[in-house]
């Protein structure tokens, strides 16, 4: 197995951005952006990825680890091919989000943050997605497809079932999202 390395796209992104930050501050400032892109490449952020990012940006591994563990969008382990994120915060809760989240758990046979045995879907309860007027809301991310994710709004049992059916069949029902 060859050692992991940052993709040419990430390298180009770093080059392009470096001068937008004051001298000596760019390496640290780019930590979040590089970590996120590294996660898109490698699926998750583990010790090896942390070391690679720290080396490239000229910051300590401790700093990168501190950042990686602070933010919820960085995953220490792989998530499924599809990441179904259901908001249950106040606006969505008033519209019945918990009932729908329970339905997702039952159908997928997983708990919150769990991944189906076939690695297809990870289910997460997430905080407010800033679409409170159109709840309940979910967001679906597909690994390696930056044009996804989409927001799925006004969810009800029928719509959630259609989404889960589609994910099981290996596609994101983009016609239901926006």
């Amino acid at each position, binding site marked *: 197995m060859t050692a992991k390395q940052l993709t040419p796209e990430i390298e180009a992104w770093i080059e392009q*951005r470096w001068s*937008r930050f*004051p001298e000596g*501050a760019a*390496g*640290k*400032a*780019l*930590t*979040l*952006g590089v*970590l*996120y892109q590294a996660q898109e490449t490698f699926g998750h952020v583990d010790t090896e990825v942390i070391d690679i990012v720290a080396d490239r940006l000229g*910051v300590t591994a401790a*700093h990168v680890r*501190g*950042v990686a563990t*602070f*933010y*919820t*969008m*960085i995953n220490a382990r792989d998530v499924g091919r599809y990441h179904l994120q259901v908001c*249950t*915060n*106040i*606006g969505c*809760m*008033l519209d019945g989000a918990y009932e729908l989240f329970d339905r997702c758990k039952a159908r997928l046979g997983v708990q919150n943050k769990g991944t189906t045995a076939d690695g297809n879907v990870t289910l997460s309860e*997430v*905080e*407010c*997605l*800033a*679409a*409170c*007027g*159109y*709840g309940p809301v979910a*967001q679906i991310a597909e690994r390696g497809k*930056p044009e996804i*994710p*989409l*927001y799925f709004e006004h969810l009800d049992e029928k719509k959630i079932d259609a989404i889960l059916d589609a994910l099981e069949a290996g596609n994101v029902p983009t016609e239901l999202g926006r």
Partner: protein
Amino acid sequence: MGENLKIISQHFDDPQARHLDHYETHGGYRMARKSSSMAPGDIHGEVKASNLRGRGGAGFPTGVKWGFVPKDAETVYLVVNADESEPGTFKDRHILFWNPHMLLEGMIIAARSLGVRNAYIYIRGEMQREFRVLQDAVDQAYAKGYLGEGIFGSDFDLDITICRGLGAYICGEETALLSSLEGGRGWPRLKPPFPAVKGLWGQPTIVNNVETIANLPWILEHGGQAFADLGVGRSGGLRLVSVCGHVNNPGVYELPLTVTGNDLIEMCGGMREGKAVKGIIPGGVSMPVLTADELDVPFEFDALQNDERIREVETAPGVKFDLGGGRTLRTMAGSGGVVVMDETTDITKAAWRILHFFADESCGQCTPCREGTGWLASVAHRVAFGHGRAGDVELMASIADGIAGNTICALGDAAAWPTLAFLTKFRGEFEDKVKNSHDAAPAGAAGGAP
């Protein structure tokens, strides 16, 4: 000005509006062009005259904030806070998605006035769609020569860089945002020094909300006074309000500041299924709830803070909460995120969900908040779900009072204030839950729980 004047939202729902050429056909970038040759002080004068107040939550006068930048500053940064994540709030996302060039034009105007060479937009990580729209808009503006060196053929240089968050509510707090923008954990910093004096990389930095900045082209075109005249008292302009919950037509509305809670419900097509309203959160879940008989007060910054028709928040029946300096707390206009709850809503569950959120999002720096929000969420959970214990209502109030005012940033207050307000105004619901708890000792039983 017409009754239905829209400053920011008139092209919401028009997919063409996000393209630069289309924006220009509606007069876009004329004010940015004009500003590029204006004296910075003249722009600042209009902003001060406009009575524009920050639309992110605190409602601080924008012109005053800009005035805090030291006159001899060599490097000044402008940062736009696009980290909208206060539950109930979804207005900035609309601006970013439908009208990104209005934000960029406002940034050019602000940057010109403040003497900024490098400006940043910090956008919420979850908003991937909005990020792509915004990045497209920035790329279009560079291609046209509206950003970069010598913009509009003037001697004014400006770069705008978009930085993405990675999922942390706290980064909407301006000093946490700066910590995150510098590449670290989103840890708030003690104020003073305020960012306008010592912010990004130790330099004077103005952090403004998306909606705040998007108002600037209109202010420059029509004059600060005209904007002030649209408002009331010390608050200028109109306001984007996002409404969710039990109304027929939830959504984003651009409204005069004189609109009351009852007006708002009517504009949203009334209550769903004709039910009665139980409570309204007026400005994002950090803000104290209003009851059905407090909805004739305008949703304006000063009115919501001071109008005597709104009951003061208490720490115990008859004991007013001290906001500091002897001031009491009614509520605040906050972020304009309105949550409408009808008569069927279980307030104890709503309170628990809000506290669960703050416990999840506490950054962990300050003990009162790190521990206190967790305790609040845990006690609120057992009360709401039928396992409350005698004294839990007093315990919640005591924890909230212990957090408030004792933390670096306002997240602690954001958890404490709504807790105390729910307990002040819906105390009976919490007490009933405790009284009817599954864990309550049966009448006549000897002894209590071990």
